[in-house]
């Protein structure tokens, strides 16, 4: 359901910067359902990739073979991401906080002696800064949904309204956080992540229980539509398309 909900967040024709894993799966699902003209941009240098199977890594050969244009990694970041040409950035997170700041660097209060060392920043800080808007996909638990992230790898809304502008970040920031339980969106006034939809069979209480801060629930809480047969079939096909190892 999380993948389907994430795919639905992508409007047809948009340029979308995708990381590997769930974001790539969701973006490819969108291309196979409602958004056949979605433009996929992978940081390894594929502009307009149209993979027929699900890429296993961010630099999978299928990306170069099917791309409109193959460019260097510096070019991806400097000519394509940095100027804000890419409408949607798709990010994962190890931790995300009340103001949608993201941590993928270290767990624990001491950077030099981390409890868990995570992979680090990758393309995320600049995706979060420069894409037109950002969609985050992350499983919702009290370990990942925290009051304040241990390390700000990628800026969401900083410490609240006005921070993005002060920092000169030109994209709108995270507009939607899609979890296995539902969808959170920043409150237009406070920038605080607020539960705006739950997936079928989930209620607001469950979502609140898995959130490390006092989660606000939108007045009109929507329920995500059930995955359609078309979506489920496309997802199955996509999963079956991964190359045998």
């Amino acid at each position, binding site marked *: 359901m999380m993948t389907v909900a994430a795919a639905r967040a992508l409007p047809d024709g948009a340029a979308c910067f995708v990381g590997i894993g769930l974001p790539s799966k969701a973006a490819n699902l969108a291309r196979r359902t409602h958004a056949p003209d979605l433009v996929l941009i992978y940081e390894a240098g594929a502009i307009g990739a149209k993979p027929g199977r699900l890429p296993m*890594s961010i630099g999978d050969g299928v990306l170069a073979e099917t791309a409109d244009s193959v460019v260097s990694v510096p070019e991806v970041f400097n000519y394509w991401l*940095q100027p804000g040409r890419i409408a949607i950035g798709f990010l994962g997170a190890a931790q995300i906080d009340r103001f949608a700041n993201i941590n993928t660097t270290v767990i624990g209060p001491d*950077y030099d002696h981390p409890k868990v060392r995570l992979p*680090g920043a990758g393309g995320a800080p600049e995706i979060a*800064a420069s894409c037109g808007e950002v969609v985050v996909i992350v499983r919702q638990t009290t370990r990942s949904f925290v009051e304040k992230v241990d390390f700000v790898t990628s800026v969401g809304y900083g410490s609240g309204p006005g921070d*993005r502008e002060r920092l000169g970040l030109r994209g709108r920031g995270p507009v939607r956080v899609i979890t296995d339980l539902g969808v959170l969106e920043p409150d237009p006034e406070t920038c605080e992540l607020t539960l705006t939809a739950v997936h079928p069979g989930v209620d607001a209480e469950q979502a609140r229980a898995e959130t490390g801060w006092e989660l606000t629930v939108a007045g009109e809480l929507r329920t995500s539509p059930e995955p359609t047969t078309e979506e489920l079939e496309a997802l199955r096909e996509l999963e079956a398309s991964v190359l045998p190892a």
Partner: protein
Amino acid sequence: MRTRIVPLRTAIAELVHDGDTVALEGFTHLIPMAAGHEVMRQGRRDLTLVRMTPDIVYDQLIGAGCARKLVFSWGGNPGVGSLHRFRDAIQNAWPEPLEIEEHSHAGLANRYVAAASGLPFAVMRGYRGTDLPEHTATIAPITCPFTGEQLTAVPALELDVAIVHAQRADREGNVQMWGLTGVQKEAVLAAKRSLVTVEEIVDELEPRPNAVVLPNWVVTLVAEVPNGAHPSYAHDYYERDNAYYREWDAISNDRNVFSAWLAELREGARAPA
């Protein structure tokens, strides 16, 4: 000053010295794995290892005790999970402490660009509002002299040695690679010395779509190493060995299993499967 074509062992012995700053580049594709293994076999130490995406070959080099410091932007086993040797070095200083210098992809890519361009620094939009500048000294604010806008500067990443893998070289040492070519050109141009391992030496490099050519006068040594990017892939030569990446998770997750793997590597001419 033309490129020489030599065996891999000779190339590593000649180019990589203890204490050097060395980058093995290749963004998922064309990772110079065999060259990394030869560095381990020759027991280099105190290296400052640079790489945007340290993955299993850097996990191996770190576990083997070759590195004093790692300059990087994303360290993981792509599609699988964590790098256990990397984590063990940072969290537990095993086999020895590992200093880290951490950037974003955009930042590290621009550090290569600055060095390739003969500039002391590059300018970018980035890092603002993140906790990275607090821990990484090689990030500084800079003001536009025309608009007054505040941006970020990162210093040139000057390398002693760059090592990359390519599909082909000709007999004069001109190198051709294609598919996703990452930051390999920038890394070679950022380095005092460079080694390119190639799948094959050919008589002529016929032009190809999406190809990057490095002329021989910017390449120090070429070594012919078929399959030299395994378990990563070489576009039009072989596919990525995804099973190996998963196996590595098990090998690297235990110090003893890893040490046995390393001993076998050091004895053999090829990496153990």
